[in-house]
């Protein structure tokens, strides 16, 4: 780390500090908060600085502790409940989906579960099927939840702050594969989550690559490689999965005519398919130079053995080859170019 850059995990840590320093109503609970283990380097010794009353380690009770956070949020607090793996959140789905997502609506806008639920994507390393999931598509399916997945260091901090300051229940999903990425960071500006949408990470004219969280990072890496080979891709970091806004993506695809969506999760009823469906629904099909493509996980649980893991997860070269193939489909390209 040079003197000016900071890592993704430290950016999360600095988001926590900002919130805890400036907002009395913020407190944190979750498993592993009194230990460096679970949460990587993203919450180091917070309990020492802010005390165990504000940084509460919990028993192994995902559903109960999520409910506790909801209850406190209904009484003027802004709790952050940390689930060190998204897999464990399956225990807490009633509280997240039946309760947090619905109280505002079903009580006529009079109750606001203003909690943030931080779910960490933590996989690889032969952790196997129950310790590797990325369930962003599930949360995106539920009206009432806001869902964010930061892919950059600054978003890691700023979207956390925006999530906690939102009056709605927010699922904030970070990915441990991003923790060591580094970036320079501007001073904090508090953003309104409702105004944040997809962001063009890199402009381009040949094809549009949409990524989500870690896959947005990978898309940027791939775009740089493609550029070296004369392919100019526009990379869009989806950032907010629910409510999802696709205008930026549609504008981009109208320009490029080609769409690749990368999501490190399962395909069926997933975010990648959603982006494609949203685009083709709203974009006149004549603008498409080729069929959109998604790059997702195989339809299988995560294997344990490293021999299978290495082909299971999405590699940058796989993304790149999909892009190249899409560009190479000259027949379609030339024919439709006449149309546009």
């Amino acid at each position, binding site marked *: 780390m040079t003197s000016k850059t900071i890592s993704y995990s430290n950016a999360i840590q600095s988001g926590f500090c900002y919130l805890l320093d400036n907002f009395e109503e913020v407190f944190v609970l979750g498993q592993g908060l009194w230990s460096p283990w679970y949460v990587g380097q993203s919450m180091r010794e917070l309990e020492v600085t802010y005390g165990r009353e504000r940084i509460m380690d919990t028993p192994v009770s995902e559903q109960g502790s999520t*409910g506790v956070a909801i*209850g*406190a949020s209904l009484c*003027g607090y802004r709790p952050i409940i940390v689930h060190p793996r998204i897999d464990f959140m399956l225990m807490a789905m009633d509280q997240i989906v039946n309760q947090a997502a619905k109280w505002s*609506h079903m*009580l*006529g806008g*009079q109750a606001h579960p203003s909690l943030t639920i931080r779910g960490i994507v933590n996989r690889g390393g032969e952790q196997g099927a129950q310790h590797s999931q990325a369930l962003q598509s599930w949360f995106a399916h539920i009206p009432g939840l806001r869902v964010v997945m930061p892919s950059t260091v600054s978003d890691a901090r700023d979207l956390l702050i925006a999530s906690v300051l939102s009056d709605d229940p927010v699922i904030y999903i970070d990915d441990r594969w991003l923790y060591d990425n580094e970036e320079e960071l501007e001073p904090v500006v508090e953003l309104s989550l409702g105004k944040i949408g997809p962001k063009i990470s890199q402009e381009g004219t040949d094809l549009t690559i949409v990524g989500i969280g870690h896959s947005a990072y990978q898309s940027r890496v791939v775009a740089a490689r493609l550029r070296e080979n004369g392919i100019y891709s526009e990379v869009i970091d989806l950032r907010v999965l629910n409510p999802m806004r696709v205008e930026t993506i549609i504008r981009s695809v109208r320009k490029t005519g080609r769409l690749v969506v990368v999501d490190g999760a399962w395909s069926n009823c997933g975010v990648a398919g959603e982006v494609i469906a949203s685009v083709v629904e709203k974009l006149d099909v004549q603008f498409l130079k080729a069929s959109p493509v998604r790059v997702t996980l195989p339809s299988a649980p995560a294997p344990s053995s490293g021999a299978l893991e290495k082909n299971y997860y999405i590699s940058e070269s796989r993304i790149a080859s999909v892009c190249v193939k899409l560009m190479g489909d000259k027949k379609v390209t030339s024919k439709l170019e006449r149309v546009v």
Partner: protein
Amino acid sequence: MNYDLGDLSNPAKLTDPIDVSGWNTGELIEIYKKMRLIRNVEDEIARLINSGEVKCPSHLCVGQEAIAVGVSYHLRNTDRVFGTHRSHSHYLALGGEPKSLFAEVLGRRDGCSKGMGGSMHLFGGKHGFLGSVPIVGGTVPIAVGAGLAAKKDGHGDVGVSYFGDGACEEGVVHEAFNLAAIYEIPVLFVCENNLFASHMDIHLRQPSDRMSRFAEANRINVQTVDGNDVLAVAKATETLLEKSRKGNGPGFLEVVTYRWKGHVGAADDVDVGVLRKEKDIIAWKKRDPIQRLRQGLVNQRKMDDSEFNAMDREISKDLMRAINEAKKSPYPEQNDLLDYVYA
């Protein structure tokens, strides 16, 4: 199959008039009126169900009025109370307006939840009623969280969680007990043990009919009382709250009772319930919490029957007015559907 509750679950017992000694008559009359109000509201809603005007699923609490009234007697509007699918009494006992409840079950915009919730989703924030929902067990950890907020606030307020014997079969409720215990959270668990979860008798669902055993396992202070004796409920609540308000953690109140109506709707549902027999309903009606208090007062010559009858008529009249007003309330507007999704 253990009948650990003894007389508390035996409808042939505990049918005597309530002993009102030591209580101020004015207070007792207020308590009576609250219970009567709740009973009458439920009877009116039953009528509205039968007439087809109320369409949302409604779980009536007829026969269980003493619990919410006894508990609420020691609550203040800065406490944070959470209910269940069967929460009309919880809402009304805290001072929720009958008109808003009627409007809500009629699906109107003036309803306590703006017509977005119906009977199973009630809100009465200004009275301390922060919400009820029909997912069994769903509000129990939420009430613990509200208690945690109260603890952080430091004004001696408490969370209150109403739930049933059936809810004790949901794992999350046990998580909530432990969390309340370990964090010493000021929350009052009120287990309305009416011996049934929808059609199923407690003995078909659990090895003992006594719910407090779960609280004891979590080292939570327990009171187990006759839920049809409003003064016993109030007293047990007071005992438990005293400790909680001082920051000594949670309390658990098990109140044994019986519902006169079926699980949902206006019918008696005899024999819909496995083991729900007409003779039990008749027997339990002899343990009517309202009649028992009234008889206690009459026996002590604090009030006579004609005074009670006049009072009852007054309540009825007010309710008719409330219903008529509720029926005049508009329905929600179409934009409400999307406007309430996010803050």
